[in-house]
């Protein structure tokens, strides 16, 4: 085991030697340089490993004296961990900077080594003054490193940095000396043991000064303008060190000093961190420069880690207990790796605008790394940040610290906004030029990306400890496999995915019971069906299959999850997969963003809900505990409901849906519309089965959900009739349809649930059918505007039949299966006595006829356009699933009991009253009766008779062409002028007036404007003037002082 003191020895030695060796050969000095860095990694790494295996920690004494007289360094487990990390970062960043080092003078090598040494020292030292020295060493080396550059911007930034650092060191020095005066020692351990001596006023103020100096180094809001400038302008490799390495060291320093702090100071630190986290993210909203954006994000993350750590300690956790380690360590690692990686990426791309980063798409591996870092920062599974956030919320909730959770989630949401917007721009924007790729620059990024993935897996095992989760890991392994196999052509990957989904459903179906079977059918069998259209694509379709598999993995995970954690993880995995699927559409960027933001927002609401549940239910994660909540019932159910309703796109939360579903690719639209929406419903079923008589105030939750559902049906359908875009029309129709489902669930009766669940299945069938058929048409005619189509029945008769069956089933006209839903709605409304809600639902249902007709008319009937005269029928891969679904619809229409009976039997367990009574194919309620098969026969019989009759009578009828119409003795001139398609229901809009206005969209627009403009307003604080920044720092110190000690 090498003594860590050698790190300092090596650096000090090399500092002189390097410039000598450099005279001999640059390669030699570079070799020594990297050797040194590697040796640091080795030293700290070997210590870390041996300490892990139980070796005793090492205290290094200098100058032969024992503390407090001499300076001592400590190499404990945590120190070893931090030094390993930072040294590794140092090595990688040096590799990253290899080309720079080779080109520049040898001084930069020396300075670089000094920075790394300073960081090591900061972490290891146990002496306060020594801390100051190491801080100054690091800082001076960094200033010099920045100063080597001849770029004016980095010079300016460096100068501001120096001034700020100088002031911080002033405070540190004064604080240190007065601490020394109060406690008589400079050794931190001695101070901790004699903490009682620090209760004098001088001691407290001294401590405050030390802490505030460290805080300033950690860039608190608003005294952090200089840091942003540094992040923005300085070379990326160096910034990676500053943002990740030095910040890590300073965080560790703060961590070392926490035992000294009293309650007031702890609160102050937590508050500063929280404010920093929130405001950095708010201010970043309007940021257009990627590196400055990363700067804001870094500052925010540091604030978060600070807060979390301190809050946990305040909550009474031991400083190095496993839970604290898990949470703050997870957040820290997440930030450390992702931020360094992103800064490195920024150095490769070298673009000043977020949208110019689109050139990243030329390199799949870097794109993947970018995505990984972004998702890690947002806190999605399977990254450490997700698990840490989960554990954090659970822990804080258990301690009743709801306020902290709310602000942290709010800040995280703001962060998600700009990160996702960035990701969207990278994925979708045009780009002009490629960037140069050098192996030395990519290697560190890839290593960190892999590291973060491995850590994610490691964290998942930590958090999931105790659950047997092989079945959850299996699909994720497959996802990983698909990432590796992404270079294969589409048909192989498609076949693989279909096979895997089928196998997986075979695996988990035995575990499902009751209504979960229905969802199993929708999620998995439906999933297999909707993968078939994938064969229409040619080429490789990079980045599609892993995410499809991920979405299905998430959906399957929902089905088999037994704890809130499993549910939430699956939920987020599904969200992540579906986001990538949605954003693949041509014009999907803004819609995918709003989808994801609503999803993230909803997920945070759920997270909070689960946290509360965890706290009130005796720290139980079991999903079943949802049924017997003791306190805060309303809040928990409301939060969870909010989360699920977001995915279900209830009115008010629906604005993401039309764009997301409408702009998605041909085979993605049916997946997200027919399958993904049901995930929200699945969640609602879990929630609602837990609610039996929960009350919020005096309004019962199901009652309000009932109204919500009813209004959703009405408005969703109403908006659908005004759409010109066929796929958006279907998307709005989905909003309305899911309103039905919600209404049915809210009824909380046997029949209501039966309606809901069968309607969900039905919706899956007809909406997938419609989306596939319309998708096929759109694929052929290359437009989504219905008024640009028309007369396609002659060209695409099979698609026409699909749409015909689809709309009859959708509109609920007997004899097809949709009628079952309508019939049950009437019965259940009467049974429950919700007449007014019922009426709104039914009127909404009537409006559905309008868009149904418009869809089929404007696309397939009317006049065929000039340029569509040679359009071909949709590809067979699209038609096969359509006809399977038509078959299923027919089956369900003739034998409605086929589904209704088993679902009803299951529902009897939940709601024993009011089940359907079956008698020879007829269903009876206490009010009415209905026989699907018979109706089908009668209708079919009459239909067939008259059709044959008419056909016989007109057997000699002359077939004519499209312009052979009576046109008031004239002739039509052009098909596009003869086809009535645009603004088809203008009169309806006129009649309903203000009811047709998009109020919800306006509301969310205003909200978004509010956040963005307030962020934009506040960030004017950073004027760019170094002197103003000094003022900020001083005012900040004063303000914190007065707030902490009350003046």
């Amino acid at each position: 085991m090498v003594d860590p003191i050698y790190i300092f020895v090596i650096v000090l030695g090399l500092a002189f030697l390097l410039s000598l060796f450099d005279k001999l050969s640059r390669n030699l000095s570079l070799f020594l340089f990297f050797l040194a860095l590697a040796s640091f990694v080795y030293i700290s790494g070997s210590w870390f490993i041996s300490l892990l295996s139980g070796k005793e920690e090492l205290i290094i004494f200098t100058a032969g004296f024992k503390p407090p007289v001499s300076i001592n360094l400590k190499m404990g487990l945590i120190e070893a961990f931090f030094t390993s990390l930072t040294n590794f970062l140092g090595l990688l960043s040096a590799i990253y900077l290899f080309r720079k080092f080779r080109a520049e003078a040898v001084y930069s090598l020396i300075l670089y080594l000094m920075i790394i040494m300073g960081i090591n020292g900061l972490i290891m030292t146990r002496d306060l003054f020594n801390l100051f020295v190491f801080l100054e060493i690091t800082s001076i080396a960094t200033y010099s490193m920045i100063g080597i550059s001849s770029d004016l911007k980095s010079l300016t930034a460096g100068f501001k940095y120096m001034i700020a650092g100088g002031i911080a060191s002033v405070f540190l020095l004064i604080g240190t000396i007065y601490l020394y005066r109060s406690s008589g020692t400079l050794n931190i351990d001695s101070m901790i043991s004699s903490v009682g001596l620090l209760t004098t006023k001088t001691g407290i103020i001294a401590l405050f000064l030390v802490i505030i100096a460290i805080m300033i180094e950690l860039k608190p809001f608003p005294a952090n303008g200089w840091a942003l400038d540094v992040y923005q302008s300085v070379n990326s490799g160096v910034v990676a060190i500053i943002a990740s390495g030095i910040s890590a060291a300073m965080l560790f320093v703060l961590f070392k000093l926490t035992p000294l702090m009293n309650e007031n100071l702890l609160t102050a630190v937590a508050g500063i961190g929280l404010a920093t986290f929130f405001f950095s993210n708010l201010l970043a909203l309007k940021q257009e420069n990627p590196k400055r954006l990363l700067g804001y994000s870094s500052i925010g993350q540091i604030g978060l880690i600070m807060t979390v750590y301190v809050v946990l300690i305040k909550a009474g956790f031991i400083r190095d207990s496993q839970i604290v380690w898990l949470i703050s360590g997870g957040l820290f690692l997440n930030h450390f790796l992702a931020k360094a990686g992103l800064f490195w990426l920024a150095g490769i791309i070298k673009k000043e605008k977020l949208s110019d980063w689109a050139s990243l798409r030329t390199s799949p591996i870097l794109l993947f790394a970018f995505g990984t870092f972004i998702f890690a920062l947002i806190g999605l599974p399977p990254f450490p940040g997700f698990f840490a956030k989960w554990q954090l919320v659970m822990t804080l909730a258990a301690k009743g610290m709801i306020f902290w959770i709310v602000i942290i989630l709010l800040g995280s949401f703001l962060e998600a906004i700009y990160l996702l917007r960035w990701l969207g721009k990278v994925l979708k924007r045009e780009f002009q030029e490629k960037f140069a790729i050098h192996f030395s620059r990519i290697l560190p990024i890839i290593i960190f990306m892999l590291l973060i993935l491995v850590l994610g897996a490691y964290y998942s095992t930590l958090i999931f400890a105790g659950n047997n989760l092989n079945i959850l890991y299996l699909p994720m392994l497959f996802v990983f496999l698909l990432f590796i196999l992404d270079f294969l052509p589409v048909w192989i990957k498609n076949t693989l995915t279909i096979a895997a989904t089928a196998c997986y459903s075979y695996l988990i179906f035995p575990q499902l019971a009751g209504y979960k079977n229905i969802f199993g059918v929708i999620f998995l069998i439906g999933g297999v069906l909707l993968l078939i259209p994938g064969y229409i694509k040619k080429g490789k379709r990079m980045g599609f299959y892993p995410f499809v598999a991920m979405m299905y993995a998430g959906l399957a995970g929902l089905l088999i999850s037994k704890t809130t954690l499993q549910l939430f993880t699956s939920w987020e995995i599904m969200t992540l997969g579906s986001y990538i699927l949605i954003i693949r559409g041509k014009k999907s960027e803004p819609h995918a963003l709003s989808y994801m933001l609503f999803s993230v927002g909803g997920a945070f609401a759920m997270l909070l809900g689960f946290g509360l549940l965890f706290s009130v239910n005796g720290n139980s994660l079991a999903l079943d505990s949802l049924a017997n909540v003791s306190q805060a019932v309303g809040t928990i159910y409301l939060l969870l409901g909010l989360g699920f309703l977001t995915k279900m796109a209830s009115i008010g939360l629906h604005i993401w849906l039309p764009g997301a579903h409408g702009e998605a690719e041909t085979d993605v639209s049916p997946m997200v519309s027919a399958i993904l929406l049901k995930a929200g419903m699945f969640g609602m079923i879990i929630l609602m089965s837990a609610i039996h008589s929960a009350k919020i105030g005096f309004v019962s939750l199901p009652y309000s959900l009932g109204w919500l559902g009813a209004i959703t049906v009405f408005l969703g359908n109403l908006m659908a009739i005004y759409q010109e875009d066929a796929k958006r029309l279907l998307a709005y129709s989905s909003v309305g349809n899911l309103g039905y489902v919600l209404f049915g669930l809210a009824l909380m009766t046997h029949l209501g649930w039966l309606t809901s669940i069968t309607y969900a299945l039905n919706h899956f069938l007809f909406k997938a059918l419609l989306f596939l058929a319309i998708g096929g048409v759109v694929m052929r005619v290359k437009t989504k505007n219905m008024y640009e189509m028309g007369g396609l029945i002659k060209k695409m008769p099979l698609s026409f039949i699909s749409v015909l069956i689809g709309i009859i089933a959708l509109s609920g006209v007997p004899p097809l299966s949709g009628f079952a839903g309508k019939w049950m709605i009437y019965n259940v409304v009467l049974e429950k006595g919700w007449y007014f809600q019922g009426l709104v639902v039914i009127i909404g249902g009537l409006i559905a006829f309008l868009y149904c007709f418009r869809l089929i008319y404007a696309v397939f009937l009317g006049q065929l356009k000039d340029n569509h005269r040679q359009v071909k029928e949709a590809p067979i891969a699209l038609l096969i699933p359509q006809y399977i679904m038509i078959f299923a619809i027919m089956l369900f229409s003739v034998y409605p009991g086929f589904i209704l009976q088993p679902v009803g039997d299951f529902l009897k367990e939940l709601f024993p009253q009011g089940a359907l009574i079956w008698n020879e194919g007829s269903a009876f309620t206490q009010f009415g009766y209905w026989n699907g098969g018979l109706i089908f026969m009668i209708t079919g019989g009459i239909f067939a008779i008259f059709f044959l009759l008419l056909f016989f009578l007109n057997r000699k009828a002359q077939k004519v062409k499209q312009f052979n119409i009576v046109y008031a003795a004239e002739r039509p001139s052009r098909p596009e002028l003869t086809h009535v398609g645009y603004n088809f229901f203008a009169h309806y809009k006129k009649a309903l007036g203000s009811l047709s206005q998009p109020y919800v969209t306006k509301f969310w627009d205003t909200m978004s404007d509010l956040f963005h403009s307030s962020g934009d307003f506040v960030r004017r604080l950073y004027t760019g003037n170094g002197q103003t920044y000094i003022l900020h720092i001083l005012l900040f110190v004063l303000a914190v002082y007065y707030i902490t000690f009350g003046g």
Partner: protein
Amino acid sequence: MIDFQPVKILYALFSIFIIFNIGLLIQGIVRKIGARVGKRYGIRFYQPYIDLIKNYSLRTSITHGIMFYLGPVFRLTGGLGVFLFIPIIFGSVYFQNFSFSGDIILVLYFIFFGALGMALGAGEGGHPYSAIGVSRGLAQVTAAEIPLVIAIMGIAIQYQTFSVSEIVAAQQGGIANWTMITNPLLTILGMVAYLGSMMRSPFDVVLAPQEIPIGPPTEYHSTFLGILQTNRSIFPMAKTVLFVNIFFGGATNWFILIIKIFLIYMWSVFVAVVFPRFRVDQSIRWFYKYALPLGAVVIFITTLLF
């Protein structure tokens, strides 16, 4: 209730035959009455028969495509279906049609079957006027269905059943038991809905012969038109029978049924001659503005009373 026997098909055919003739005759008689009111001699009361025969006997026809065929078929199937799912004569074994296969909601939704099919056929014709007519028609039908839906809801609340037979049964025993007397507001609402569904003034902008030559069926001719005319004689009668059943105590024999059908039918005629035509957005707004609040009041009162 489920006792389907093949012989019922014969009974059903017989009642279709009767209602078909009633429909044609009532059309003729109403037009005759209208002429006499205007001091004209008017058509011969059997003129609808002749027109029908003539249309079936035309020698030529053209077709725009398969949906052009299916349109009238859908329409007639819709009309006949509505009729066949309603029990005609209370207490009669023979004239229950196929009402055992579904209740009043089936009838309510089957009304759309024809409308949708007709709309499709008209669309296949490719004529812009058809499309405009359909757009107006569907919009107005969905608005006019609002009072109908509410009325049926009210009926169901009042009698606690959706079964037409049971609703009729509950109204037996004198005029005092009719819904018309027991729940007059509900009946008014129902009759408003009836106006909306009869395609007569003021709600006949769908056809608008002078503006968009009779709207959806503008391209239909010969046999196609014949089928539509056949439907015109059955479908309104079927709807009227439904109203007789749910508001006016049903009928225990054909004679009473015919009288009641005639009287109810005349209601729409009376309104039609008094009120001029609504524009389509006016009629939609009318239903939302007056019929819907009236419906809410009716439901409220009905829940209070029953």
